[in-house]
């Protein structure tokens, strides 16, 4: 099983003890959950950059004026870095962990696909204009294009001394980063992992997805018959992972168990998923095997669900392959329908949303918009939350450019033997 831990029972159970999020719904977890429950999309008009020349004109953007606690060195941080730091700070605060004694044993595992592209675009625009005018270009603007920016910013802000690693696997970055962090904690490489993802809106991705004709002119409608593409969003999410026994020993409240993770690749096409969802199905099976769960034990799925024709069809095929006859009855939601596609941060934010659903015993809805697709045989959660008070195990999937797939399984704490 690719990517699956071959012997998870021999290793440590991993607890999620903190969550943090910056999303188009607000700068904290409470606003995220409230917005997700409402089923109202945050996708709409935006002004992060001038987009009159673009084909579409909607996105889900974070309100920068609502930033609650501005980092001291904000002037040297990209918007993306600020998202990441805010999410990580909230996750650390909620975990009530004292990093003071374990900074050297704490690692940061972050995903990002745009890094400081938004600022680099501004810089490059100024540079090209200056060259065209024959004037010496200025270098006073910040240009930090590299994708390691957000993860490094988190580590710097929190004074971390352990491993710091950034994964850039397009739309699967955040999920893969969390998957790596789970393995690192399970392996004993670190005692605490701060894992997540961060991405900001920028012209490159907005124009690029429009060039692919993959952006819907209306807010996206994942898995619906009239879906016409994705909606872009931005934000960050972070989770705190610790060995379960360590978390319990320090009196922490485990929010969930990070039970399984796996990553695969379609090796099929740069932008189109495997039509039968082959790689995605392998990733799901790998994560289930790592969690030692039968597919029948999954209570709901937070799908990648972008709203593109090909993604949703391939993902649906993967669910059918793994869950068989049960697939049409399996509750499925897509966080992207409410906050847009956060690209390198999407898998992280959706992991947080999945855990929130487990904690609250209900699956957040998608907007009840669009029409039913007879080819999508899934139990979509539409319009209002689905009460699943007894939900124990949930799956979150991420499918990316280049065929990279990641799957994460979370389990409500207290409902299973962690050494199972």
């Amino acid at each position: 099983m690719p990517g699956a831990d071959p012997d998870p029972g021999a290793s440590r159970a991993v607890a999620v003890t903190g969550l943090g999020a910056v999303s188009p719904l607000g700068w904290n977890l409470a606003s995220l959950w409230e917005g997700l429950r409402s089923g109202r999309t945050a996708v709409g008009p935006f002004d992060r950059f001038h987009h009159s020349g673009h084909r579409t004109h909607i996105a889900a953007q974070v309100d920068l004026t609502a930033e609650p606690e501005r980092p001291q060195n904000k002037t040297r941080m990209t918007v993306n870095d600020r998202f990441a730091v805010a999410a990580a700070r909230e996750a650390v605060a909620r975990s009530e962990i004292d990093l003071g004694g374990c900074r050297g044993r704490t690692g940061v595992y972050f995903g990002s696909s745009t890094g400081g592209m938004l600022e680099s675009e501004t810089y490059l625009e100024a540079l090209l204009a200056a060259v065209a005018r024959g004037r010496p270009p200025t270098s006073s603007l910040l240009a930090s294009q590299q994708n390691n920016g957000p993860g490094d910013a988190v580590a710097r802000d929190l004074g971390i001394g352990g491993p710091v690693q950034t994964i850039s696997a397009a739309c699967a970055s955040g999920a893969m980063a969390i998957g790596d962090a789970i393995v690192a904690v399970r392996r004993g490489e670190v005692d605490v992992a701060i894992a997540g993802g961060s991405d900001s809106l920028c012209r490159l991705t907005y124009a690029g997805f429009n060039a692919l004709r993959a952006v819907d002119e209306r807010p996206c409608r994942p898995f619906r018959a009239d879906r016409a593409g994705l909606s872009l969003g931005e934000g960050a999410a972070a989770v705190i992972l610790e060995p379960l026994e360590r978390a319990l020993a320090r009196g922490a409240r485990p929010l969930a168990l990070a039970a399984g993770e796996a990553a695969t690749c379609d090796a099929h096409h740069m932008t189109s998923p495997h039509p039968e969802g082959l790689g995605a199905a392998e990733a799901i099976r790998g994560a289930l095997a790592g969690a030692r769960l039968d597919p029948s034990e999954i209570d709901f799925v937070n799908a990648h669900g972008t709203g593109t024709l090909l993604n949703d069809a391939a993902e649906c095929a993967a669910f059918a392959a793994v869950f068989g006859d049960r697939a049409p009855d399996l509750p499925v939601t897509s966080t992207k329908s409410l906050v847009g596609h956060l690209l390198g941060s999407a898998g992280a934010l959706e992991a947080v949303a999945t855990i929130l659903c487990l904690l609250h015993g209900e699956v957040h809805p998608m907007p009840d918009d669009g029409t039913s697709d007879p080819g999508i045989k899934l139990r979509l959660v539409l319009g209002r939350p689905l009460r699943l008070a007894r939900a124990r195990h949930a799956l979150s999937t991420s499918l990316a450019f280049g065929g990279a797939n990641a799957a994460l399984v979370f389990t409500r704490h207290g409902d299973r033997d962690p050494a199972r």
Partner: protein
Amino acid sequence: MPRSCSHATEIGTLRAETVVTGLGTIGPCGHGREALAAALAAGKPVVVEVDRGAGLHREGGARLAALVKERDVSRWVPAAAARRMSFPSKLAVAAARMALAEAGIGATEAGGPRVGVYLSTTYGPGLFTEQLLRQILLEGAEAAQPYYFSECVANASAAQLAIAIGARGPNVTLTQRESGPLLAVARGAQAVREGRVDLALAGAVEEITPLLHALLDRFGALARKEGALAEMPRPFDRRRDGFLAGEGATLLVLEREDAARARGARALARVAWSGAAFDATATASDWGDGHAPLAAALRAGLDEVPDGAAGVGAVVSGASGARRGDRIEARVLRAAWGEARLPPVLVPKAVTGEYGGGILAPGLLALEGAQFGPTPGFGEPDPAAGVTPHRGGARPIPSRVLLTGLASGGAAAWLVLERAS
């Protein structure tokens, strides 16, 4: 303690070891290990003049880079496939096929769900990104070409590599600047050791464009001509003023030692230890001065290796000529070794340039006893650094080498390779 993978003593059996069975490298020195070995033995930076015709460079700035001159990789990547790839993707696929060939793994054996790809890049496909941005900024957003977009993502090269060989296991792109190549190998080695994959292709790829070169120079990162001093990187030298930008790709084939031996493959090296840490005193674009915790982390890791630091026969240093980068690298090494004498410190990036995965292949060559010429640019020791790099001449063939990768921004990674015979 930042151990990111364990030594065999923890696993307890030979079968769980990860070995390197293939090396593919394409860079400014040419294609393959022989061209690289010749350049390292000569001890001179392999440079060309960068095209400054776009007017993006500043007056008096850097002019040189270690660019790939032999750009035809059609021996490894057929034209029909190459037309869909950016230059770094072609380099990655070519280097991977070169590595697989050395490992004795045929095209039909290289793919499948048990094969993973672990690739590092700092800038991703730079030229395609630039061309896409120019279209958006200068011609209008609707001028953006979808081909540039799909091939400008950081994981494009890893994805193209997976498609080329049918690798359906984890497809991981690490973007952690100078520490990325070592993290990628460590990550791949762990996956092999833990049985998550049977085969890993791990390494690094980078492309340097005129725009990227100009930006690096504008931010004061690159070596330049200063008075009578020629433009060249001067690792550990008092007069160093920046690094030499480089491009290329290096891929390693990683597999379990028992599997390699069972199929009669020659193990080039064993991955003995890897570690990682972070210096939170670093700024976003430079190195910090928190050498003591990094040294403690390195020292603790080396204690896991047989004979500890004394068992390391050579350091293949990631020093590049960066002012602060070389200083903290030197201080970490000196503190990790304490009162003991440092082994020979080899600095391949002075020849191959920074960012092109330039440390991985020289690390393997160093383990094999390849001769390294005098470190280019080194003439005046820097008291603030205190490390004298290799000055050429014969050196004992080491049983273990330490590869170092301290990144601007604060990330650090180390890797110990040992002889597998």
